[in-house]
């Protein structure tokens, strides 16, 4: 009897444990529908500092977009719309930007937004921002002029891109010093709490001046392990997850809707021009001919993604030139011929350093190696972790070739193109082309928007002709949402706008 009893007790204990963790899961309803909240899964914790001028990670900006606003802010079509300002005008010489402050805008701490706060924000941003391009743009400010309802910026020289920098200056309350840990802005959501490696919670700002958010609360759950994130999504614990891979969307079995957008970046094989044989334009062109971008997209992402052809992605409709994507059609014979002309009739070998934490880059590199073999080029993949990539490849420029994606941190074309100017601190490929430098400088110097666009397009054409890099694609971005969660919109920049989401009951 006793042994049966022991067995029975053991089983009972197991059963008890299993029942103890029973949660409330329904197939087609989410726990969040009841209290009008959602849980969003994110793959990395936010930066330690939530101060808008000190944020560095794209994942942090993506979340804080809901909390901070500038005088103007980007909309889903990439236009700048009024936010803390209700109207603005630019003087005919392009030197004076005048913003009318919207009346009745309050900070999350209840204080009214005044012109003094705006000036404080610009001055603090100019002196403390970690974004070098923003600091540089603001250094061209000659003076700020403040009245009770108006804020003017006088520039030393015209800058047609200036509004995109204004957009990046989050308006914060004057003399508030806890932005690091308790951020206060004017956006449609307020910061509520955060817990290291666990969650980040924002709640609706009921005093918002514009269209108020539908959801009352958004909890970001941090799951750094990719499998854990996917499992949580597939089980229905999460209502929304962005940046999924094609394989993950295929494995999703819980009936969630999948929307497709783009990552808004330029993925390319970036070549170090200071290293032989990549100093020879013919070798770079040969690589471009040897790579079949369409086949690569089919193999790595089921044909999703957009070929780019130069350092600009399609969301920048004004500058993007579709024809450049076909500048180098797949042509092995031509690649071999170019290599022979350059003195490498039997091909050559090189190492491509790939950041191991970005699966799309790893996948593309794998396909690349196979494609280059056909042209007699022997490429070897060396996986490096992200910290190593940053210090060795990006900062140290100690590489032959690497694969990564660049986006525009300042929401304008110069954010994409400034880095390829000779001697630029971020010019990690050591690119140097006098024609490019001249075109880029001309673009920066002009106050005329149409003319500037022409110059930027010229820059892009030069990068293509010169085969500065082997340009691949703007990566596809998949977002999975609960079938009853509606309103998700893709932006032409790396943000998730939570104010548009609502439960369709």
């Amino acid at each position, binding site marked *: 009897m006793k042994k049966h009893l*022991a067995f029975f007790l053991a089983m009972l204990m197991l059963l008890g444990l299993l029942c103890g963790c029973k949660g409330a899961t329904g197939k087609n309803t989410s726990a969040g529908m009841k209290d009008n909240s959602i849980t969003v899964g994110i793959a990395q914790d936010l930066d330690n500092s939530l101060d808008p001028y000190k944020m560095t990670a794209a994942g942090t900006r993506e979340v804080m977009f809901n909390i901070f606003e500038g005088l103007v802010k980007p909309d889903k079509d990439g236009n700048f719309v009024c936010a803390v300002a209700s109207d603005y005008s630019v003087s005919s010489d392009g030197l004076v930007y005048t913003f009318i402050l919207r009346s009745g805008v309050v900070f999350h701490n209840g204080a009214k937004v005044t012109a003094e706060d705006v000036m404080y924000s610009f001055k603090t941003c100019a002196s403390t921002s970690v974004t070098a391009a923003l600091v540089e743009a603001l250094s061209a400010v000659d003076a700020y002029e403040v009245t009770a309802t108006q804020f003017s910026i006088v520039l030393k020289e015209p800058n047609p891109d200036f509004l995109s920098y204004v957009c990046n200056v989050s308006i914060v309350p004057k003399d508030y010093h806890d932005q690091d840990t308790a951020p206060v802005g004017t956006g449609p959501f307020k910061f509520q709490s955060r*817990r*290291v*490696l666990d969650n980040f919670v924002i709640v609706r700002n009921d005093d918002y001046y514009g269209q108020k958010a539908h959801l009352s609360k958004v909890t970001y*759950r941090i799951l750094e392990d990719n499998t*854990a994130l996917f499992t949580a999504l597939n*089980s229905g614990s999460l209502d929304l997850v962005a940046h999924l891979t094609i394989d993950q969307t295929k494995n999703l079995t819980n009936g969630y809707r999948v929307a497709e957008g783009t990552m808004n970046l330029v993925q390319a094989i970036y070549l170090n021009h200071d290293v032989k044989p990549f100093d020879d334009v013919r070798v770079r062109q040969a690589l471009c001919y040897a790579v079949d971008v369409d086949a690569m997209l089919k193999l790595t992402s089921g044909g999703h993604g957009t070929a780019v052809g130069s350092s600009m992605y399609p969301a920048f409709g004004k500058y993007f030139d579709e024809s450049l994507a076909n500048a180098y059609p797949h042509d092995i014979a031509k690649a071999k011929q170019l290599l022979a002309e350059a003195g490498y009739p039997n091909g050559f070998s090189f190492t491509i350093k790939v950041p191991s934490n970005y699966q799309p880059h790893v996948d593309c590199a794998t396909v690349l190696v196979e494609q280059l073999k056909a042209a007699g080029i022997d490429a070897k993949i060396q996986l490096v972790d992200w910290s190593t990539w940053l*210090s*060795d490849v990006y900062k140290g420029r100690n590489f032959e070739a690497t694969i990564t994606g660049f986006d525009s941190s300042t929401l304008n074309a110069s954010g994409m193109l400034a880095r390829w100017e000779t001697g630029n601190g971020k010019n990690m490929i050591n690119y140097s082309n006098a024609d490019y430098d001249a075109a880029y400088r001309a673009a920066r110097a002009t106050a005329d928007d149409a003319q500037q666009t022409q110059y930027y397009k010229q820059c892009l054409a030069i990068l293509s002709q010169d085969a500065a890099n082997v340009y691949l694609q703007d990566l596809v971005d998949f977002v999975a949402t609960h079938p009853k969660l509606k309103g998700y919109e893709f932006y032409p920049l790396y943000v998730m706008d939570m104010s548009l989401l609502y439960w369709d009951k």
Partner: protein
Amino acid sequence: MKYLAKKLAALVATLLVVSLLAFLAFQVIPGDPTTKILGTEATDEAVEALRQELGLNENVFVRYFRWLGNFLTGDFGMNYSRHMPVSQLLGDGLVVTFALTVLSFLITVLVAIPLGILGGSARSQLLDGAFAVVDQAVMSIPPFFMATLLTWVFGILLGLFQPGRYTSYADSIPGFVACLIMPALSIAIPRIAMTVKMLRSAIREEMERDYVRTARSRGNNRRAILARHVLKNAMVTTVTFLAVSAAEIMTGSIIIEQVFGLPGVGQLLLEGISNREFLTVQAIVVILAAWVVVVNFLADILHQLLDPRVRYE
């Protein structure tokens, strides 16, 4: 007393070696914490100023001994990318990891011992065979795979719990414990199988011994012998094994935390390594090493208490 002093000296030496190795490893691997803190857009002056502030430009050994001095006085330093004292960061993480360890250990002990006795005393050939097969199979499943399996079966197919949900102990203790059950089972189940196998074979071995035969011939029944004599002897190795398990469970929980998204020291360790936060990694490595050494030491003492024949001198 002499034994204790010797053990203590060994403990200190182990920790010194471990911490020095971890420190040196950080000198060998490329990468530097400033890029994570300041981002890729930062100016060179800002990077240099931060390197100066963090003391990264100084000699390796100077830095090691400064760290050691601070560590011994209880100052674990700062986690730069989180701008938090390491001790505060670890405090929260350790609660999670320790709770997970304790729960896994309790489940292991409470399930394995009855099952082991049952397996050891079974007389039916069929039952015994089945027991051995199942035991061997479960034992070969690594905890991280067990975690995936449990999540899939109980989380997705049966919907008994919500994968990826976590309730902090600060919000609700029962909710916190509920979140730890699946992770704890993932660690405990393979370990239960190991313990059962050990206890089962120990009991079988003891049952073959002369004293059992003698007791039987004197008319004692099998069950009484099992309870009164065999179990006590068979338990010696099992208890020692369980004690050592306590150390392995804690180190093993690092992977399991990752699978279930629990904010324990395992996640902090991995994050620390990828962000090159050497102070955080140092502290965790030393704490884990200390736990392993101390638990092994306690296991020795326990073994000695249970089996008076054993004497460590």
